């Protein structure tokens, strides 16, 4: 498999997210002073400018906020998988927070395993995790089982 671009797992602003993902937990950043939650993580609380934050576990449930389908030409690591869907997920616990993700048919299925025609905005999804390197485990998303067959 040709490599895909991955972040550093030891970046001070984001390491906690990747640590949690390796433990199959999906976290967002929470301000220790005012409790404001934010994602993507960054230094300081955007609500009160407090410097200290912690990682808050989420339920890993969400819904599709938007999506697209990438066709080539694109990076070699993704070219063999086109066309594949790209999704943005709105978190159920934090409706104001969104994450980019991949929608897959099963936890270790490839990122082109769900047909674009099966995706719709508002579709419920659950997080899953895929280890893609020694240090990076990516959160991905599967259609929620209870969703069943859409008419």
């Amino acid at each position: 498999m040709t490599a895909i671009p991955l972040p550093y797992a030891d970046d001070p602003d984001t390491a906690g997210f990747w640590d949690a993902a390796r433990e199959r937990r999906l976290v967002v950043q929470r301000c220790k002073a005012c409790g404001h939650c934010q994602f993507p993580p960054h230094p300081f609380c955007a609500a009160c400018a407090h410097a200290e934050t912690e990682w808050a576990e989420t339920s890993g449930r969400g819904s599709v906020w938007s999506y697209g389908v990438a066709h080539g030409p694109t990076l070699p690591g993704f070219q063999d998988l086109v066309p594949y869907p790209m999704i943005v997920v709105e978190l159920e616990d934090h409706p104001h927070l969104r994450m980019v993700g991949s929608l897959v048919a099963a936890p270790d299925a490839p990122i082109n395993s769900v047909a674009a025609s099966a995706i719709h905005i508002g579709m419920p999804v659950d997080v899953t995790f895929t280890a893609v390197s020694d240090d990076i485990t990516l959160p991905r998303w599967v259609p929620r089982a209870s969703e069943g067959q859409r008419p």
Partner: protein
Amino acid sequence: MNGTLSLKDRTAIVGIGETAFGKAMAQSEEQLACIAIKAALDDAGISPSEVDGLCSLNMENVFQHDIARDLGMKEVTYYSQMPAGGHGGCGTVGHAAMAIATGQAKVVVGWRSRKRSGRASRVWAQLEQRIQGSRDTWLRPWGIIRPVDEVGVMYTRYMHEFGATRDHLANVALAFRGHANRNPKAFMHSKPMSREDYFAARWISEPLCLFDCCLETDGAIAFVVTAADRARDCRTRPVYVHAAAQGFDGGSAILANYFTADPMRSQAATCAKSLWRQSDFRAADIKVAQFYDAFTPEVFFTLEGYGFCGRGEGAAFTEDGGVALGGRLPVNTGGGSLSEVYLHGFNMITEGVKQMRGTSTGQVEQADCCFVSSSDLGPTCAVVLRN
């Protein structure tokens, strides 16, 4: 704005220069830059030795000191670069105007030179195995790689919220292609496009197809700004920088504006507030405009962000030829990034100047000013030019 620091009409664009536009051109980016800048100075009747200011984009590969050496400039007292590539083009006009109005320089050149055909020109193709920064980290590992992927996902949501369709995108692509068909310099001059052609095009990143994306072209464009009193002695009719603004708000993101509280709010809102505060013209007074159009959906966000229509009404604005010549607001009258040339929006600046000189191939006769903006899916900038 009648304070001493107002920029209003205190400076003017007195020269514009362009190379030919093409693919895989023989010249280097540095040669192209020199050709365009010399042409702009010749247009104004100003010697390179008089240039003391240089403004460009942070993506520019040709350094200001190389330009100064190549063209024999003497003492350069002001230089700056705008960040974020296509989001910064109009900012070079604003910086030039500010530098002159505050006495930092007397003759400022702005330019953009690019060989899109070079592989090094595709930023997204240069990603390293390990990535850093908030934009790459939270997009790329999941396959949102190219700008077109970022904007495509935005437009799926826009369609969902506002009932827009691909037909609205076609309205934009067809209008600008029609303008290019009148412009002999446009890369797509001799290639008419029908709605059927649009819908037959291959996908690049659904919901965006080939004709929703700007051209991949080589070339360079330059302009010359000087003080209004000096401008009146130049060879050309002065085109005054009436208002110039830049802006973003705290939630701003480049193209992939997924993480802010209200992603469908045009990111131009902050810049628009500053621009219209400075300008004697209101959005309703604008009769011709040049928008950044690397991707067709950007036009809707610009229409909404600057108040040419209400939120969510940008797509509908393009119906019945709304942004074509003869429509409610003719936009990108030279063909734009979609059909004239892609140089990070610098052709919008020169087309704005041509409109004010009365020399555009898509001339809007009654226009007394021209609105020009840079990409507003991110930190942005805009100017109002007048004659």
